[in-house]
């Protein structure tokens, strides 16, 4: 039986003026699942992400997380619920070191009061020390230990992706939304990343992934949702998707018929 739904998207539609970016999208992500959202460029994947994380308001439809409606919540409020995303392009704070990046990411954990921080009270200091410790654990965990003192903007794209993921993990997500995490990574980096994603899931974090790298998607996903022109054209386990005629048509076209 399918696990209970963590995130459910019901009849979401997004219109930009006359342009329909998403039309009537419905799917759920079960607790502890790794689900991938795939589709050709412009299919509406990132738009879907933006709606789920409050960066964009849906024209109609509803998103709920563990039964709580996310409609109308601001991004930081959604982050407070444990739903954390990464970004396709800008995934780091470029002018800070990797270490400081993670300290910024740990914002949700380090909430002692302003007065304590200003007076330098022991509680604030202890909480700072705990944050540094946690940051160190995190970049060891994603394999960036030796880069801790480097400026995030000076890292390779693949490494910046890892910083982005570590930043998201710093916010202690119960669900992680990864937007094209392996773009810019080479084959071996991608391979390591797949292990990392599994490791994150094994710690009880639900994962929704948008990705173009098909071998990666096929190897890591429990379930795949395929979007094209703003609507879902297929949904199922990797083997089923691989052989689905509608998916093949979306990606490769259907040359003979049109000829």
């Amino acid at each position, binding site marked *: 039986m399918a696990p209970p739904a963590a995130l459910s998207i019901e009849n979401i539609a997004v219109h930009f003026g006359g342009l329909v970016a998403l039309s009537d999208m419905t799917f759920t992500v079960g607790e502890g699942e790794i689900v991938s959202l795939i589709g050709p460029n412009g299919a509406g994947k990132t738009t879907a992400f933006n709606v789920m*994380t409050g*960066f964009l308001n849906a024209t109609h439809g509803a998103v709920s997380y563990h039964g709580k409606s996310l409609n109308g919540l*601001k*991004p*930081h409020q959604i*982050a*407070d619920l444990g739903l*954390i*995303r*990464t*970004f396709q392009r*800008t*995934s*780091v*704070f*470029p*002018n*800070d*070191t990797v270490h*400081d990046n993670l*300290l*910024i*990411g*740990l*914002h*949700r954990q*380090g*909430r*002692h009061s*302003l007065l304590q*921080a*200003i*007076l*330098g009270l022991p509680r*604030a200091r202890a909480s*700072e020390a705990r*944050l540094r410790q946690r940051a160190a654990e995190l970049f060891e965990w994603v394999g960036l230990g030796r880069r801790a*003192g*480097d*400026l995030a*903007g*000076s890292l390779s794209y693949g490494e910046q992706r890892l910083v*982005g993921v570590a*930043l*998201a993990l*710093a*916010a202690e997500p119960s669900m992680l939304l990864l937007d094209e995490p392996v773009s810019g990574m080479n084959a071996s980096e991608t391979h390591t990343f797949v292990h990392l994603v599994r490791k994150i899931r094994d710690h009880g974090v639900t994962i929704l992934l948008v990705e173009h790298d098909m071998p990666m998607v096929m190897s890591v996903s429990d379930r795949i949702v395929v979007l094209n022109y703003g609507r879902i054209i297929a949904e199922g386990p990797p083997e089923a998707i691989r052989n689905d005629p509608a998916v093949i048509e979306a990606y490769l076209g259907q040359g003979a018929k049109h000829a």
Partner: protein
Amino acid sequence: MKSWLGIVAVAALASVPLWLRDPYLLNALITTGIFIICAMSLNLLLGFTGQLSLGHIAFFGIGAYVSALTSLGFDVGLPGGFRIVHEPWPPMTGFALAVLASAFCGYLVGRLSFRVRGAYFVIVTISFAEVVRLVALNWVELTQGPLALTNIPPMEIGWAGLESFVFRTKLQNYYLVLVVAVISYILIARLVGSHFGRAMRGLMENETLAVSVGIDVTRTLTLAAVVSAGIAGAAGSLYAHYMKIIDPEVFAFINTVTMVIMVITGGKGSLAGPIVGGLVFGLMPVFLRPVMAPEAQWIAYGGALIAILFVMPRGIVPSLTARRLRSASTASDTFVERGVKEGA
């Protein structure tokens, strides 16, 4: 090492009145010090959140007027035949109220304008300062308008029943300004070093990402505006009780521009930047005055400004720290060098 440098700097500044007896120069140091406090508060907004407040002098002026009126008392008629009569309170209360009133104005301006940021924030702050100036100019019954508020009593520290200390001489005021400046510096340093400071930096560098890890934009930026305005208000109060006279000219736009120059040349986003920039541009007119004609002074001032920014585009303090660290480490790959490239 940093705190070692700070202690030396404070000790050096504290020793100045011991060997400098010239009252004119001491006066210049006091007014410059007051301006530096204000520039530090501006740096909190401009350097650590990236928001340019071109009406920062409004918070300073509000602090000055609130503190002066609290300690002078007033009797103002309101529409409908009501009157507000205020008996004079001690200047210390004026100082506290000045901080609170300015911080509250910072809250209002922050809440109103951080929804529309960048250029809009600049415009809102300019307009705010101009509105406040017009109120000070035209509400003659309260502020005496262009006739100025005069006979403002000197700052006085004391507790009911105990003997109080009055800051009458320049020497006493110098140390008062120094103490308030050190407290403001520590306050800003602690704030910037805490997770609130990291939230500000995160928002400045990559707002979308900052929001996605749970940083509340409005709350963080409003907090910065409140603290910044409060410190500017404290500086305003010191100014009023030191000068003993204030008129609506304290709200002049040129004062804000001077502060912005101090922050930018010293190095925005560096804690010591406004102090260095403030000392350079606060004291430059004093040293130019005896040797140059008035027209030439401002040309020299502008020339120095351009020269500093040409040689050290990121400001004096960040450029010097980068240079020192670079000579300390010959490795071509230090993160400071990368930082320089990144900044370029």
